[in-house]
């Protein structure tokens, strides 16, 4: 091969390699976009079923149920307008408790039941996941702020 042709081959290989890499990257990007929905979105049917999404809200007081000795746990998430039941099997994060804002990642399996693969609560009692705070604000745009225990988004960590 002449040096010229060799260079052409090399350039061609690089183009193919970069193309393949970009295709992989775009594919990975597409597959890993996680959309966030509020509990009202879920109830009104805006959230897709059987696709990994994230939902967020407050854990309703008194809603956490557990069979003694079992890891299976169920709780109700709310944005003070609509409720969604979440089921989860595993160790809950340290700061998970009733009345706290949490985000759950998992799939909606219909009938307002959400099966979570992961539950996130942040490490501060004042913390509210921003998505949850937003969706709460939207729910209560018409009301006086004092009606709703709107936690501040300030000061995590």
């Amino acid at each position, binding site marked *: 091969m002449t040096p010229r042709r060799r260079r052409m081959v090399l350039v061609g290989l690089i183009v193919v390699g970069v193309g393949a890499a970009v295709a992989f990257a775009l594919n*990975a990007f597409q597959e890993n976009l996680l*959309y966030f929905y509020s509990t009202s979105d879920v109830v009104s049917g805006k959230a897709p079923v059987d696709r990994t999404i994230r939902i967020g809200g407050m854990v309703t007081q008194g809603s956490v149920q557990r069979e003694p000795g079992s890891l299976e746990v169920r709780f109700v998430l709310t944005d003070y307008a609509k409720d969604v039941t979440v089921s989860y099997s595993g160790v809950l994060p340290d700061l998970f408790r009733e009345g706290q804002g949490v985000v759950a990642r998992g799939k909606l399996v219909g009938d307002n039941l959400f099966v979570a693969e992961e539950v996130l609560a942040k490490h501060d009692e004042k913390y509210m996941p921003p998505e949850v705070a937003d969706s709460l604000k939207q729910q209560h745009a018409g009301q006086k702020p004092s009606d709703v225990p709107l936690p501040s988004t300030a000061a995590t*960590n």
Partner: protein
Amino acid sequence: MIAELGQFALVLAFCLCLPQAFFGLVGAHKGKVQWMQAARPAVAGQFVFTLLSFGCLAYAFYVNDFSVLYVASNSNSELPTFYRFAAVWGAHEGSLLLWLLVTATWSVALAAFSKQLPLAFSSRVFGVLGIVSAGFALFILTTSNPFERLIPAAADGRDLNPLLQDFGLAVHPPILYIGWLGFAIPFAFAVAALLEGRLDVAWARWVRPWTTLAWAFLTVGIALGSWWAYYELGWGGWWFWDPVENASFMPWLLGTALIHSLAVTEKRGLFRSWTVLLAISAFSLALLGGFLVRSGVLVSVHAFASDPNRGLFILGFLLLCIGGSLGLYAWRAPSFKSDAGFAMVSRESFLLLNNVMLVAAAGLILVGTLYPLFLEALDMGRISVGPPYFATVFVIPMLPLVFLLAVGMHASWKRARLENVKVPLLIALAVAAVVGIAFPWAAYGTPGIMTVLGMVAGLWVIASSLIEPVSRLKGGHSLSPSVLGMSIAHLGLGLFVIGVTGVESYKIERDLGLKPGESANVAGYDFRFDSARDLRGPNFDAVEAEVTVLKDGETVTVLHPQKRVYRVQTNPMSEAGIDAGIGRDLFVALGEPLGEDAWSMRLQFKPLVRFIWGGCLVMAFGGLLATTDRRYRARATQAATVPASGAAASV
């Protein structure tokens, strides 16, 4: 009184940044020697007052002065003394003061060790650093004053976030900041070179040790953060592709590209404008990371507060620094043309590929980190990009890079004749292939294709990095710190790759509920839950479980995971029980009581996880060693000569 003294010192430090910037830049522009000479003392003064200010804040913490708002918010009289000191950077305001102190320390170190630099050039460097410091100081004074008084004083403090009451996290931020802000030095050098319109081989030689030093600190800082997340966040992961982790990692990738492109600039005078662009980008990304973290745009464990004023200030400062330096780059960089050529197979080509891949990885991570922010800003919904995206786009360019590295280390400048090393390299590859398949198979079970690729890549790099030091020592030749440092750093990378491959291929994580006396089997180890008891710590109450780990009926270790509740902030916290070993970690985190004396637990088996942080430390050590090379201390006049031959392959 102390708080006011601290604030006054801070104001003085800010005031000294201004003449440092003005006399440094304008003095050099006008060629006024006396003005230029004023820059260095200004640096020293700025450092002294920043240190004094920082010392005052630390003292306020030490004596529990709860009339200072920041102390009252982040400390408590029960807090152990060591953490009282670490609490200084436990939240936003103190962290920024530490930023300023770190920047000042780099500046003063540069002032002390840069006597050989031409006066005009060094004063420009100090001028640029003065602008950076002034920006930080103004930011603290206007939006985040740590000395604000609380009247009336609090009876006791609200305590440090329990997550931060830990040795790893006490030392992680300072070391990370040292690395992060260390990139201000190559940035200042790059801007000074653009202002001067001159960038020669000597320039690259001056800036190289500083860049490598900053890079080494950043490496250790990131590794410490990863280690802390592993044992303290309790869930045994070592990297989460959290936006804030990405913010520290992108400058590292660009910094790594920069130290390699600087090698080409120093040895061959090539890639000059590219090197300058990298130096600007690395620091810009560090600042962008600061913006993302401190403005609260990104919310994660690390984000301190969301205050729009702070965000606006940082955004403005960012635009000034990045916009200004890039504008200057667009104007001046075309004059940095390189005329020397190099063959297709040469060290230059390999380093070019290195740069392309590192920058591509950083770019793809940047896209994943910023894309949700853009969508949100455009009101197109809230999304997040899942960790598998980052893992994929990171591995695509990095795995080939590791293979290329094994060969590229031995390529010489201009035109590489790889025939000399062909045989040892192939032997190394064969050994790596055999060990890379046999070892994981024997130790942990059937390996997948990625496991084999990772193991072989890591082992090959390790073997390849040993070829040159061994052959030089055998031949009775001397081994310069540069070559040895490079070899060690690459060896560290190989260890890191092996660690990542081992953990990601063979980790086992199981969540389950256990009652006292019950046991569960994970990876051939029986974890027996013996008992749980109450425990009282200095500032927390805890439940401590005793878990005995047995293998084939014999006790391997007894672990004591805890669930703590800190008395002031009343947050529960898991303290994992870990048995660390070279081959594997055994890990137990205590969840919550499930009723009937049962507890939920997460049991984990983490093979080779220590190689990850060990590899990073070895990498950083290699970097440190390389900075001690004698040629960096040679006089500037000698340094200015371009090495003519391309044969010497030391980087």
